[in-house]
């Protein structure tokens, strides 16, 4: 028997009325009050998410950069201390092991942030690939709590708790500092498409930090926000979620993440297969859509062409609380992306209107 894992904030969630569910083996709040209201709060004001379930790994050593350049698709040589990079790492066949953030702390000293459901798999994979490189990969996941404060008022809220000038830390940059007396990595990143910060602190400090953010949150309209809103916010922003838009079988090129695949940096795991896919064109494509209807188009629903033949499947679907209509993403045959596509939801045919995300205007700094 394996019980769900808990973050340092588990009791905090229960005290604050979090509705707990199993997510990728973690006991996490899907919502506190209402997924729709929490979503809207992040677009209008700000929300506090516990993302301590996310994994962290240290990559350290003289050949850490050389190893990362081999491991991931994006170009880590562009990093400098204080800079963050979004990337994926692939299998030799081009499918995705995981998507991740790479933080450069210093020469030969990197921190990776990986998906909760992939921690064991990723660590094994990375340690295997690191053989022959003069560097080490260490799982640090249990050592960190991670809080995301996201939304247009998020930075102003956190600014009341820290001497670090947050306006000096640009999007996809980070610094070390103290927030509410807690030592943190202050990262100007997020998964909502809004301005905000992600704070990494020692696991034992997580509750103290969360309580301080809540205590300071009133004037900023802070809402406690769960994984339900996190998913609808990321989909509305057009961000991929591992297991949906990217998987072991869906390459970054297929997923529209060609911008994180840098062939000019030299060979890396999967580069020859991805290069061939880019040159010949993908057999399938991830597309984003809206329907003009409130019925949610859920993952695994078949996508049909005008003749009613299946040409793909839905990989993510939700109701956009901002647009008030169903939005989602689908994996479809590349040949049909210019044709009319539809889905059948309980006997009602709904046309998919393909959209280049984000679905709503975003206000990233």
């Amino acid at each position, binding site marked *: 028997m394996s019980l769900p894992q808990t973050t340092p904030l588990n009791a905090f969630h229960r005290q604050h009325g979090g*509705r707990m569910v199993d997510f990728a083996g973690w006991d996490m709040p*899907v*919502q506190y009050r*209402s*997924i*729709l*209201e929490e979503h809207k709060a992040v677009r209008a004001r700000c929300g506090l998410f516990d993302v301590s379930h996310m994994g962290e790994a240290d990559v350290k050593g003289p050949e850490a950069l050389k190893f990362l350049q081999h491991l991931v698709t994006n170009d880590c040589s562009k990093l400098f201390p204080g800079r963050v990079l979004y990337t994926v790492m692939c299998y030799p066949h081009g499918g995705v092991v995981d998507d991740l953030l790479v933080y450069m702390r210093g020469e030969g000293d990197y921190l990776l942030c990986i998906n909760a459901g992939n921690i064991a798999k990723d660590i094994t994979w990375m340690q295997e690939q690191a053989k022959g490189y003069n560097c080490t990969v260490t799982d640090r996941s249990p050592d960190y709590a991670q809080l995301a404060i996201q939304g247009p008022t998020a930075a102003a809220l956190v600014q009341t708790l820290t001497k670090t000038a947050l306006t000096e830390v640009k999007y996809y940059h980070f610094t070390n500092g103290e927030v509410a007396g807690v030592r943190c990595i202050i990262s100007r990143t997020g998964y909502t498409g809004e301005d905000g910060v992600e704070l990494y602190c020692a696991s034992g400090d997580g509750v103290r930090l969360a309580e301080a953010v809540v205590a300071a949150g009133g004037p900023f309209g802070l809402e406690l926000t769960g994984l*339900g809103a996190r998913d*609808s916010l990321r989909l509305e922003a057009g961000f991929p979620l591992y297991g949906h838009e990217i998987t072991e079988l869906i390459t970054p090129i297929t997923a529209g993440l060609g911008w994180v695949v840098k062939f000019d940096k030299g060979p890396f795991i999967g580069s020859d297969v991805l290069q061939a896919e880019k040159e010949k064109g993908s057999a399938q494509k991830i597309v984003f859509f809206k329907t003009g209807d*409130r*019925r*949610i188009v*859920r993952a695994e629903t078949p996508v049909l062409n005008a003749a009613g033949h299946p040409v793909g499947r839905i990989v993510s679907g*939700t*109701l956009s609380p901002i647009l008030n209509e169903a939005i989602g993403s689908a994996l479809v045959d590349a040949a049909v992306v210019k044709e009319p596509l539809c889905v059948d939801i*309980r006997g009602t045919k709904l046309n998919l209107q393909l959209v280049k995300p984000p679905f709503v205007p975003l206000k990233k700094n």
Partner: protein
Amino acid sequence: MSNVPAELRYAKSHEWLKVAADGTATIGITDYAQNSLGDITFVQVPKVGTALKAGETFGVVESVKAASDVYAPVAGTVLEVNPALDANPEKVNQSPYGDGWMLKLKLANPAEAAALLSPADYAKLTA
């Protein structure tokens, strides 16, 4: 604790029924049901005039999490559906026994309603 009004009858499948003196009844889903589903985003109800058998699916209540069938607790013919739910399905969350009602039936057999759960029994079921 969820709200279980004393004047209603209940189905195990979490619908409520309010019988009027004229042999009609109003149907909706319970407070317990709306709370379990979370934010309701879409409600599909039958057309006026549809004849429903007891236990038959009459529609779908969809939340962010899932789509769930709803069942007619008793047999009858649909007299009226709540026109507000099309644009404002969240009324089911806000007022499951009031503005969030789903349909009105002309009962085929008013005696059927007596066989439904009492408020006390439904409260026990959802305790």
